[in-house]
């Protein structure tokens, strides 16, 4: 790799790492004040825990030398053998994806999921769900990769995967107490700060996924921004249509939906297609959130509606609009491959997440759900022994 691409891949890796704190603030602002630390730390701790897992065995399971179609190997435990600059860059960049994916899930179960159990969940989920799916899609031996399915930067590996685990977790941990009147985000500036950091970092996420500083990176950058912007404006317009006002949280959410959507397609489609995808996903995700109360599932921060659906729309979009091989080119192979990728990753992620969570629920001393009084008091005090903001006189 030449120095320009090294520079690019390192800064992209840093940007993707920075997305996880961005997500922490996006989520942290949306919850109630008494759970702000808990929500922040769900994400923040993935920086530490998943980094260590990835170095020790995660990378090897996902991309280790000599894997089969379904899983990597134990050849590169502790990153042994990952010595060339190109390999190290790949291991670094991929690590950042392994960090943010489980962090995304936390939006579904925040405000009530036990922190200690969550740490165990992280270890198991990255090992048993994330690493295999990353292998299927992005390792040259992976069965989906070999089949020809295309997921540029993680529509299936990251967004569908997190979205399905989110459904599993929200269903198994149950609804929050006392939320009939709705939950008002306690800090909208944090929501906007988080969304902004996510948008900023997403350029690394998508434009870095070609692993070079070249024309594909430039084009991926452009369509990423276009789709995010379009989906944001659709959310704003639909929000005005239904509510008469311009929700800042809605604008931020729309942008994230657009970013999730363009992720799998970013390296393959043009700017016109990005506009279309932005409109489509704006409408779909907006109404998914709008009607979510009809479903008795407390996916608290709409992880499935925003990321899961975003990833699905984006993968279909890739199948339709890819400059090479999309339906618009008259070929349906890619579309079908991507359909298979969508279904298989949805199924695997959902089933494995349920299994993991069910097991954690029955292990003595763990269990998924905080007690009622912990939840009422807020997880910041209960699980972290800290208060987000100290504003009372006796500071």
């Amino acid at each position: 790799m030449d120095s320009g691409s090294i520079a690019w891949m390192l800064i992209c890796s840093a940007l993707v790492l920075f997305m996880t704190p961005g997500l922490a603030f996006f989520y942290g602002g949306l919850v109630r004040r008494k759970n702000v630390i808990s929500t922040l730390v769900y994400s923040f701790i993935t920086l530490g825990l998943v980094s260590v897992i990835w170095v020790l065995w995660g990378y090897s399971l996902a991309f280790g030398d000599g894997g089969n179609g379904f899983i990597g190997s134990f050849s590169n435990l502790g990153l042994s053998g990952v010595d060339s600059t190109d390999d190290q860059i790949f291991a670094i960049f991929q690590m950042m994806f392994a960090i943010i994916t489980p962090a995304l899930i936390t939006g579904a179960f925040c405000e009530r999921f036990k922190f200690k159990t969550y740490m165990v969940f992280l270890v198991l989920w990255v090992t048993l769900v994330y690493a295999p799916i990353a292998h299927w899609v992005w390792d040259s031996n992976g069965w989906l990769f070999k089949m020809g399915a295309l997921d540029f930067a993680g529509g299936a590996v990251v967004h569908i995967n997190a979205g399905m685990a989110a459904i599993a977790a929200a269903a198994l941990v149950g609804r929050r107490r006392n939320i009939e009147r709705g939950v008002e985000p306690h800090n909208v500036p944090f929501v906007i700060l988080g969304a902004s950091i996510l948008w900023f970092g997403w350029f690394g996420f998508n434009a870095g996924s070609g692993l070079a500083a070249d024309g594909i990176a430039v084009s991926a950058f452009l369509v990423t921004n276009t789709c995010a912007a379009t989906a944001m404006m659709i959310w704003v317009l639909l929000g005005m249509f239904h509510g008469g006002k311009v929700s800042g949280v809605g604008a931020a959410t729309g942008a994230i939906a657009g970013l999730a959507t363009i992720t799998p397609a970013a390296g393959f489609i043009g700017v016109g297609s990005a506009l279309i995808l932005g409109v489509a996903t704006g409408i779909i995700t907006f109404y998914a959130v709008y009607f979510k109360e009809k479903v008795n599932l407390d996916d608290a921060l709409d992880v499935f509606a925003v990321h899961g659906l975003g990833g699905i729309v984006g993968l279909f979009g890739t199948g339709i609009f890819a400059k090479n091989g999309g339906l618009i080119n008259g070929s349906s192979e890619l579309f079908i491959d991507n359909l298979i990728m969508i279904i298989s990753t949805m199924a695997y992620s959902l089933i494995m997440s349920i299994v993991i969570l069910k097991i954690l629920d029955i292990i003595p001393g763990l269990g998924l759900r905080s007690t009622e009084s912990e939840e009422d008091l807020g997880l910041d005090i209960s699980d972290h022994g800290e208060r987000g903001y100290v504003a009372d006189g006796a500071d």
Partner: protein
Amino acid sequence: MIRIDAIIRPERVNIVLESMAKAGCTGFTYSNVTGRGTQQGVEVFTGRGSSTTNRVSLPKVMVTAVVEKSNQKKIIESIITAAKTSSNGEIGDGKIFISEISDVIRVRTGDSGKEAL
């Protein structure tokens, strides 16, 4: 007229307010406070590692309502029912102070007394 100051758990506020409104309370005012009673607070980290500080006080909400004497009993009961965490009550469920008010004035109209409630 009677002034009721109820100090309750933050997480019960919505429930208490609804219950009071149903019991005929036409207005109320509430704010965040911090308090200590029998419940003696919780330990919190000072932030670094595990050095802890014993915070003896806890966040509470104080709800103030001025009501007609005739309504007093009903409204107090509505608070008690709604503020209790369990049927036996828990330490920290709260306290209610009752005092006399000489007058109430509505700014908008200048009405005073019962009319102003």
